[in-house]
């Protein structure tokens, strides 16, 4: 968990977070009343900024909106336990977390569980989705996250859950590998580099092969395409170290 997750309240209130941070922060919100109150008030403040950009909407928008609602009925209120009724919607999160945990426990891997992220945290609709291995890591309570700008451009974020023994790398705008080459991923453990899969340039999310629980770092190197290297080349793109606890 980040050192000071509370500091994300402002960025979260104006959607200036990536998906990982959103999931983490919403998990935090479920048990931090002061952050919930702060987010609400900062959202209120943030939405005032939009007052400065009001523009007459085209008539066609009115027509299509009013036509659109003909075909959809409003959703019923979120059903909450009697004791919860009337309390703020945010407070139903712990209950949902508990429900999701219970489902995971019953269903095991690949079970269908409640997706807490929803499509917007206010009007949150509880969607049913398959939680992938990657999602489980991103949402793990012990998820550690290290983000780094890559020297050659783009950013890489490594997220690891020690309890799940797995790590995920999320890249953004990484330049493509030179022609006839690929990017190889490595887990570094006790100074040794262990192959952990490959990743293409661009924006990608890849689950690393191998047990990441005891790894010290994740490396990215450039390797000849088609080879299965056992040792990293000296063309190191970056080494992303986990913070030592």
């Amino acid at each position, binding site marked *: 968990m980040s050192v000071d997750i509370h500091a994300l309240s402002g960025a979260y209130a104006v959607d200036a977070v990536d998906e990982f941070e959103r999931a983490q922060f919403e998990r935090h919100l479920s048990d931090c009343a002061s952050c919930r109150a702060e987010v609400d008030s900062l959202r209120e403040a943030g939405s005032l900024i939009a*007052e400065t*950009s009001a523009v007459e909407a085209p008539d066609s928008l009115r027509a*299509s909106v*009013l036509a659109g609602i003909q075909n959809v009925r409003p959703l019923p*209120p979120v059903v909450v336990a009697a004791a919860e009724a009337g309390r703020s919607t945010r407070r139903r999160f712990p209950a949902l977390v508990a429900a999701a945990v219970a489902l995971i426990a019953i269903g095991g891997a690949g079970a269908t569980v409640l997706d807490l992220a929803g499509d917007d945290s206010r009007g949150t609709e509880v969607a049913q989705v398959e939680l992938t291995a990657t999602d489980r890591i991103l949402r793990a309570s012990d998820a550690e996250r290290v983000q780094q700008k890559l020297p050659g451009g783009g950013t890489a974020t490594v997220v690891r859950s020690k309890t799940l023994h797995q790590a995920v790398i999320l890249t953004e705008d990484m330049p493509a590998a030179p022609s006839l080459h690929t990017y190889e991923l490595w887990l570094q453990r006790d100074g040794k580099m262990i192959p952990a899969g490959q990743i293409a340039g661009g924006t990608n999310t890849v689950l690393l092969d191998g047990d990441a629980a005891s790894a010290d770092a994740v490396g990215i190197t450039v390797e000849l395409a088609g080879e299965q290297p056992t040792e990293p080349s000296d063309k190191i793109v970056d080494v992303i170290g986990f913070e030592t606890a």
Partner: protein
Amino acid sequence: MNRLTPEPVGTPRGVPAAPGDVLSDLLRRSARGDQQAFAQLYDATSSRVFGLALRVVRDPAQAEEVAQEAFLEVWKTSSRFDSDRGSAMSWLMTICHRKAVDRVRSAEASTRRDTSYTQQNQTIDHDVTADAAQASMEARRVRDALIGLTDVQREAIELAYFGGYTHTEVAGILNLPVGTAKTRIRDGLIRLRDKMGVHS
């Protein structure tokens, strides 16, 4: 200037926002399927919702799509609006903002990645804001409050709110150490909140 023409429902646009309890009431009636109430809600808020979508996604056709999606979401989830947690206007803008940001991030055009382009275009240009906003007392108050922020706070908030950038990207654009943009955004919003007298 049709901007100042009273709306059919009697809600003058551009002038102070419809009182919050009126919007809340319209939302509650919408939740019960009252399309008339929703039309009134639309008329009272469309210039702000559309304006925000346009500001973030820039392309008028796409802004219309985003605003339409946002209004449909508002209609569908109107029963979930909780007035204890904030105003109806803020709830609408939050839904619209999220949709607009999702749109720009998924449709990331290469031009938007070009930070120099962005820096030239992202800051609020006080001269070209819409007539509606000019006429709005609320907008004036907000603008005054924004001027009271530090430059970095204001720029960070504008890049995040209107640019749709993450705080990490904002840090890159403003050459701030990673991790500090989120603090600037938070500090700025707190200052804005306190200046505008938003109750927490």
